[in-house]
């Protein structure tokens, strides 16, 4: 199976002159569909930058990203937006939900921009919320939801678009153990049942046991790349 998301010798640095720091150094890696991959490492190791570049939010200084067979560097900003709209979902640590909208509206909002009618968007939003276990909370606004529920709304928002690529940046950092568990299980299930490529960036050690693949990162490089022992069906020597 060929990787759905490939990075070729990525380089990225911030700052200028003597204060310039390399965040990513000649980093190459591939991710496969149907897997939940976890990138872990200390803060400042470059894992969030890697995620931003792989998802097309940030352009690398050097190297290329091939996502779903598309070279992201060749896409104009508007084309990149359209690519993200069609193919990618995001989940962030801070949930980033609109305070004014109910759960079902949060999820339906991006679908409207995909050109779906109100009716279809709301229907798909309900299905996505049911999938993350929030069938009874659809009409509530963020202020009436717990942290874990808010993160599940955010996941449903990403999921409802039926993305082939799902990116999660520290999705469990703001959650307690039980809610963190629910969230990572949900992400894992999405990878399995939807065949999506799920890339999760976190320094939360609890997540490692739930991932299909764990990558350790430090100083802009991948130090180790391990398949989960809990998943013997996967072949390590790819």
């Amino acid at each position, binding site marked *: 199976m060929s990787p759905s998301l490939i990075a070729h010798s990525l380089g990225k640095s911030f700052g200028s002159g003597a204060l310039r720091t390399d965040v990513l150094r000649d980093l190459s890696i591939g991710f496969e569909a149907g897997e939940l991959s976890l990138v872990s490492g200390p803060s400042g190791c470059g894992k*969030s930058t890697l995620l931003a570049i792989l998802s097309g939010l940030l352009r690398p200084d050097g190297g290329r990203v091939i996502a779903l067979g598309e070279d992201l560097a060749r896409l104009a900003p508007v084309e990149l937006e*359209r*690519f993200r709209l069609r193919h990618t979902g995001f989940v962030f640590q801070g949930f980033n939900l609109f305070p004014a909208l109910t759960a079902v509206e949060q999820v339906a909002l991006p679908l409207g921009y995909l050109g779906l009618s109100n009716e279809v968007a709301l229907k798909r939003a309900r299905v996505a919320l049911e999938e993350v276990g929030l069938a009874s909370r659809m009409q509530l606004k963020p202020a009436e939801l717990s942290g874990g529920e808010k993160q599940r709304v955010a996941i449903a928002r990403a999921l409802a678009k039926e993305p082939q690529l799902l990116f999660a940046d520290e999705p469990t950092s703001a959650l307690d153990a039980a809610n963190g568990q629910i969230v990572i299980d949900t992400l894992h299930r999405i990878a399995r049942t939807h065949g999506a490529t799920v890339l999760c960036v976190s320094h939360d050690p609890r997540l490692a046991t739930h991932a299909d693949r764990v990558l350790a990162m430090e100083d802009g490089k991948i130090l180790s790349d391990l398949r989960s022992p809990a998943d013997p069906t996967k072949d390590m020597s790819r």
Partner: protein
Amino acid sequence: MVPLARKTLVHEWRRFLPSALAVAFSGLLLLVQAALVFGIFNSSAVYIRKSAADLWLGYPGTQSIELGRPIPREAEIGALMDPDVTRVEPFHWIDGDWRGPVDRGGVSVFVSGIDTRADGLMFADVLSPDLRAKLDEPDGVIVDRADLSKLGLGIGGQAVINGHRVRVVGVGNGLRALGGVNIVTSLATARRLDNGDSNGEVAYYVAKVRDGADPDAVARRMSSGANAPRFEVWTKPAFAHRAVMYWMFETGAGLGVLFLAIVVFIVGAVITSQTLMGAVAGSIREYATLHALGIGFDALRRVVLTQAAWVGAFGLVVGGLVTAAVVFAAQRRDIPVQLDPATIAICAGLVMAIALLSGLAAVRTLRHADPALLLR
């Protein structure tokens, strides 16, 4: 489509209130300023507008009513000879020095000598037939209610104009004009007050044309007569416009006001954009998330501009209501204020422009935000 802009406005109205108030105050300032400007400058044409005359005959090139010079009697004869003119009336206009009660000193006044008949043209709209009849009393004068305190006396009070004793026989409303106190009297009294300076000539003749006749055509015809170079003929709107334009653009006051309007616009735009940017910045992480999900800046800009338009509309309504209250209060105190639909439309357009420009400025904060930094 989920109505994000409207739902956010309703849910987080406290965040948008400062912007709406900034818009409201910008609107209030623009409108009240316009009302004052037009009120003040239009009062320079108050004599023309509040009279029933269709045509004005005056000294060639006269810019504003108080700059009148005596014109020859041939003007009156020329007007009377025109087949479409039904009535001609002299209007005497002289400068005066008013001496009222001892402790007041002198006051510069303009004296209007008018035909006192009940159906007279001059001041037909402001002086009732009763009041006009009172002017037939020798040395009787009428002053504006708002000028009474300045002149220091009431009805029945006596004063001296240009060395002649006069008596206040009545009080009018809406006689106040730009540039001085206006005193209305009969033609006979006015002639006594000018000490023979004008040799029996008056500054203006006013004329009424037959119903259905075109005043412009009559004015053109009279202007081409043999005596035309010695006087000029204007229609009522043309002469009024001339007076307002003179005060607005030839005196420097109007340009000052225009400059002030520009300052108000800029200050309003800066304050509104700052507050609106604050309100938009409050949702910046959510917008950045939408952008990450592939929703383009154009769509996000539409959301913010929709909000800006609602903020502008709300501010406009509030500003409009407060302006209406201010204008009403000003009118009750005889402060000259005037607003016409065109002015209101222009001010409303400017206020909406302030709101939308501020919205565009607020979108810039969105554009320059780094998604990778925002999205944590």
